[in-house]
């Protein structure tokens, strides 16, 4: 192997390291900026102003009696609770059909100085376990007036 090839190899290796390093720097920087932490209402409250403006995944239950839904303006307000703390959530768009008190939810959004969590996306936390519907929870019963009218698509 001539020294010329050796030098070329060295140049390639150095160039490769620089490119890989720059890429890794970009990537890790980019990842830190785009992390979405899972927080409970208590954790979010504890963070205080530090939490404002960052995209967070807020997890908890829908506080009983807190849901206010205005179908005309698609405006949804409710509180998420973890038993200790509650956070006021505001969301645009229809809630999931089976949305109700006590249900587990994950809300992606930002907490602001106005102490309102602006939701970007609202997800139901599924419990994978099969649970038989309670009386009155079966769709056939809930939507009896709709289902009795057999109408083909």
């Amino acid at each position, binding site marked *: 192997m001539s020294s010329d090839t050796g030098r070329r190899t060295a140049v390639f290796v150095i160039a490769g390291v620089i*490119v890989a390093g720059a*890429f890794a720097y*970009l*990537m*890790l920087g*980019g*990842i830190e*900026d*785009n*992390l*979405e*932490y*899972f927080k409970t209402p208590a954790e979010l409250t504890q963070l205080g102003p530090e939490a404002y403006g960052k*995209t967070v*995944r807020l997890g908890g239950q829908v506080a009983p009696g807190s849901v206010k839904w205005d*179908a*005309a303006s*698609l405006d949804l307000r409710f509180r998420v609770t973890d038993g200790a703390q509650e956070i006021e959530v505001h969301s645009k*768009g*229809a*809630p*999931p*059909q*089976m949305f109700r008190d006590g249900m587990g939810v994950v809300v992606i959004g930002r907490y602001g100085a106005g102490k309102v969590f602006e939701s970007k996306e609202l997800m*139901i936390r*599924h*419990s994978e376990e*099969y*649970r038989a*519907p309670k009386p009155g*929870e*079966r*769709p*056939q019963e*809930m*939507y009896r*007036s*709709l*289902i*009795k*009218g*057999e*109408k*083909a*698509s």
Partner: protein
Amino acid sequence: MTRAIGASALYVSLAATVAALFLVTFGARRRKEAWLNAGYAATYLQFGLMTAATFAMIFGLVAHDFSIEYVAQVGSRATPLYYTVISLWGALEGSILFWGWVLALLTALVVFWNRSRAGNLIPYTTATMLGVGIFFQFLLVAPAFPFGAVFPVPPDGPGPNPLLQNHWLMGIHPPLLYLGYVGMTVPFAFAMGAMASGEVGDGSWIRLSRRWTLGAWAFLTAAIIAGMWWSYEVLGWGGYWAWDPVENASFMPWLTATAFLHSVMVQERRGLLKLWNLNLVVATFALTILGTFLTRSGVLSSVHAFTEGLIGYYFLVAIAITLLASFVLVAGNSERLVSFGKLEGVASRGTVFLFNNLLLTAFTFTVLVGTLFPLFAEAIRGEKVSVGEPFFNRMTIPICAALLFLMGVGPALPWKEADRATLRRKLLPPLVGAVAGLLVSVFAGARSPYAVMAFAFAAFAAVANIGEFVEGARARMRMRGESAVDALGNLLATNRRRYGGYVAHLGVVAVAVAITASSTFRAEHEATLKKGESMTVGGLQVRLEEVWGREEPQRSVIGTTVAILRDGREIARLDPRMNFYPTSQQPVPTPAVRSRPSGDIYMNLQAFAQDGTNATLRVIVEPLVPWIWAGGMIICLGALISIAPFRRQAPAVVTEPEPALASPAPVAAT
């Protein structure tokens, strides 16, 4: 009875596979033809037994034999026959069984087509595949045993996961993915076989496995596109890609396999990148196992995570063994992997392939880091965290744009250093195309720099690749006096590999344009409508006609009938629905889509009043979406053209002399 047949077939199959592995390995080492042949016979036998086990399971599912644990878990008498059959891959055990069966099939085919080839390459390749087979068959008799007994036998079962029985694509996406994933085992096995037999230097393993790699790649492409389509048709959010870990898991091996398909040409032509190509093949295989770990272990919550069991950790062990074995073999072959020759110039196709590989590798690393970061963050810092979509978009969109650009440059450049005249002649039309694409997209209203760039580069690549067809066909017309149609046909027929590649490029362009257009020019509106009320979206009027419900054997359906009007005239009626399955608290959204080549009108029922007086609808107008699915099919068509039998009259791309082939097998023909 079915249970007993299936269970014993699995046990005997594992024994046959272990026996085959020993017979093939030692038969090759001690040069005992009889042992080798016995090993190959045992390979066919394990395929027969796995087939018996798989068919026993399908029979059990169809016959609603709830004494079989798996059937009791995913079956139900009310489920329609189609979804009953495909629930074979509806849960963990069945999907591993199906995987094992596909692997056994491919192993038998590799043996069948190559067994008479001299040397130890084929025995060791077979041994590698058998080794992987032992892993899956071990899972099947231990942690993922599907034929467990249930007593007392329940009268009925819960049926498959509602999300998996709501759309016919569930019968398409998983088998395609398995064929792609398992198919990647074949090039990996050939690479390991080549290193173990010391035949890695002449690259014959690459020629023998070329069709397998392309085939597996085509299946993986189709699977990814079908998965996007499924997500679009079933999840009700109007999108098709969300950088979900499960999507990433299928995308990463696709990226490395795509890199390999390109870089392997540099090795075939110039004898370079031997070690790099081996790395790509090993990485692709390891990423398929990693993908299975991510999706099956329950470490990530998703519709694909069936159980939170320990099975995932077996996959981690498999990855470790794979990497260790590859490392040992590469180290043992270091002197055979020295590259000779060099690239023919800076402005040459080889350089483009190098950049292509650099970008695809960077792409893979980005996706890998973004996918695994939450796992490490939770393990190390104990924080639950997820990586937001903006990270992936910000990192990968520039890479995609650069790849689109290279896709136009590569075909235009010759292997030898291009002179100025060639460069001008080849690159001028694509540049004109790029400017046209830029102007059209800005005129159409695109403002995001990346969107405009994507349209421009897509036009650049499209013109460059079409230009290759035009130039080749013209040359034939001039020199042989063929008609334009004949010239194009013969061009494709005589150099299928090259022009198949260009067809695939055009498919990628279609996908890129469709994705960019559907996200850039998307119009979306959500509103609550009373019966007879309407809203306006993207110039269309959408009127709620009816809210209705009906009972089906396996589910209850609440639906709406919605009229779409353009300029006051009704152009379509859609029926977005919600399906309520007895096993799930949440309804499964069932959006309705009106598809035209120009784009889709996508409608999802978000909510409805219990008395049926009103419903909340989300309507999305997305241009060109069907071209994502069509583009995927074009890519697969390109791969198919490349795989189809090669005509010998064509000047082969391979410059090295072909080794004498002992077998007339079709796979060995290239």
